[in-house]
């Protein structure tokens, strides 16, 4: 069997149909869309069509609310920095402890500049408390930034409801939706979401293209100033081939959104069931009943994630982990810590994330090899003894901190 790719929350394969629509923009219509000659005359039309394709997927009212950027990170930085620039008197930001670093690092930076950052905690299933959120909203808050779906666990936050609450309090609302767009049906015009970030490479478009949705009338300050591109809201020559590719990818995502929530979900559910039934001392993290259809994050207790990934990789299976070692940091994933997952499990979390390119046969293959991998590593673990964990693991093995 060919290698199995189950790391689609990290990035996805570019759909061949997307590649096809992009190629003419490298070889024929390579003119600068601002130019007046035949090498450019189709480009503006291509960009317009792409804008409408994105508009259709996220359900916003106007295509001019779509600003093309270079990636999700740029969209996130633009949104938050715009909100604080446009409202210099408001010195507070509300976000969550489980956001992507693309949000958290910007907030950390602003904190050093004197901003008060409210990082809302989550419970053991990764859920927010909306009562405490309500208490944080005030006229001092420049922006609320809450992810639509978590990249590690797939847990979905009630962003539509939270945007309503922010709006009622007169506070701007941004959502990092890079994991959600294309997997969850959305109709932004019916919400009070002011800004939304999406990323092309999470939905079978190429890397290096993103979008900031900016509701008409939202106060805005550009991050990049220069030419008139994107109506002066994001200067820099348009990445026309990638924009056109993203448009096509959005059209396909809309077409496949039902498939995503039925067939892809069925593959995820089967994998999850197969693994948790066969392997003891493992559990699914996050909110089981309110998740992206393509994501499962399973904690294998008493073993470490990078080791699991290396053995999976040897078996031709690609996934990812929340362990410290995979990122070279000293702590396991901040998402696992926020959910209070014990260290002995947090380091052993493996995320399997699917796309429409996966098959049930692949699922069966993973279910077949996973028990052997876990058993191999548990045999090496000081927390494991024969067929189960040692009695009182935390006491039986208490290493000197080194």
């Amino acid at each position, binding site marked *: 069997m060919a290698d199995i790719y189950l790391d689609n929350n990290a990035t996805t394969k570019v759909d061949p149909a997307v590649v096809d629509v992009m190629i003419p923009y490298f070889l024929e219509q390579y003119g600068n869309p601002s130019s007046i000659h035949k090498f450019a005359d189709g480009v503006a039309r291509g960009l317009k069509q792409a804008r409408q394709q994105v508009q259709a997927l996220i359900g916003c009212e106007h295509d001019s609310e779509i600003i093309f950027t270079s990636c999700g990170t740029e969209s996130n930085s633009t949104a938050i920095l715009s909100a604080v620039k446009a409202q210099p008197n408001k010195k507070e930001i509300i976000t969550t402890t489980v956001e992507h670093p693309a949000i958290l690092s910007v907030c950390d930076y602003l904190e050093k500049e004197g901003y008060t950052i409210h990082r809302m905690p989550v419970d053991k299933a990764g859920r927010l408390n909306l009562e405490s959120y309500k208490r944080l909203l005030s006229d001092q808050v420049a922006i609320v930034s809450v992810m639509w779906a978590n990249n590690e666990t797939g847990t979905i936050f009630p962003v539509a409801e939270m945007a309503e609450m922010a709006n009622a309090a007169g506070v701007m609302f941004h959502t990092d939706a890079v994991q959600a767009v294309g997997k969850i049906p959305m109709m932004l015009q019916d919400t009070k979401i002011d800004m939304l970030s999406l990323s092309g490479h999470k939905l079978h478009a190429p890397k290096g293209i993103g979008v900031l949705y900016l509701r008409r009338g939202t106060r805005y300050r550009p991050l990049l100033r220069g030419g008139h591109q994107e109506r002066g809201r994001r200067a820099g020559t348009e990445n026309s081939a990638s924009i056109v590719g993203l448009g096509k990818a959005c059209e396909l995502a809309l077409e496949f959104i039902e498939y995503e929530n039925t067939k892809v979900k069925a593959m995820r559910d089967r994998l999850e069931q197969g693994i948790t039934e066969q392997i003891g001392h493992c559990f699914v993290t996050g909110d089981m009943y309110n998740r992206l259809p393509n994501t499962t994050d399973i904690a294998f207790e008493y073993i*470490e994630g*990078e*080791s699991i990934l*290396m053995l999976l990789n040897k078996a031709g299976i690609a996934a990812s982990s929340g362990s410290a070692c995979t990122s070279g940091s*000293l702590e396991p994933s901040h998402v696992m810590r926020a959910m209070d997952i014990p260290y002995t499990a947090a380091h052993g979390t493996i995320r399997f994330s699917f796309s429409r390119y996966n098959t049930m046969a692949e699922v069966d293959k993973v279910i077949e090899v996973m028990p052997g991998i876990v058993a191999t590593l548990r045999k090496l673990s000081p927390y494991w003894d024969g067929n189960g964990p040692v009695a009182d693991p935390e006491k039986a093995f208490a*290493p*000197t901190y080194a």
Partner: protein
Amino acid sequence: MWDYSDKVKEHFFNPKNAGAVVDANATGEVGSISCGDALRLTLKVDDNSEIILEAGFQTFGCGSAIASSSVLTEIIKGMTLDQALKVTNQDIADQLEGLPPEKMHCSVMGREALQAAIANYRGEEWKDDHEEGALICKCFAIDAVMIEEMVWANKLRTVEDVTNFTKAGGGCAACHEDIEAILEKVLAEKGEKFDPSAESVSKPAEKIAAVKAPLTNLQRIKKIEQVLESLRPSLMADGGDVELVEVIGNTAYVNMTGACNGCQMAAMTIAGIQQRLMEVMGEFIKVVPASEMKKLVNIEVA
């Protein structure tokens, strides 16, 4: 994924001496479960000769932690305890044909487990003597705790000071913002303010005044020799050395010898030397491994 050597992969996929030694008479347990690496080393030591007859490991950790544990047991089997105490983390890393800088702590953990096990056998209490912080300088594997301690101990004030005392920041320079943040924090604790243009506290011997007038080739070679001489002690501290082979225009061809030869860090080190040369000489200098010279000659002949 990390760029692991074949040796690391070999020891990870087929670990040697996994599991606890059945009738062990020495046990060492070190690591930190919050960091995700912990190791129990069990030894069977011959009471008369103090020779390590058997060694076994149980490790919770990543690929390089398991590989380091496995290779450690191979290294120490057959050694006397006194010989084993001389095993360094560099020995472990060398046996594995190098580890990525972020993973050097795995080899440190191996050495510490060994020391702890030997202390346990001898009825002594083993104390860990270092604390590990977040990795700041990836070129030279220097962590935050180390930098903080040096800033305190030596009253360092600038990034340049930190580089002179710890090597941190002397390579690609990407960590200078992080080093500034540490300086800001520590200086604030001391009631001082970080000033990026502050005078260096140290005037290290290697600091040679930048020359403004263009150099003749002879002057340039002499200067380069001087700078390399001043860098030599820190290279030799890591078991390596550098040799100047040729200077053509603004390009200096060097041989990395000793531990530097074939080391994964060699490229970083060369970048660091180049940086230093440019700072001191005040002109653009390119440092290239002497092995690249052959290609150049071929091009010229062709």
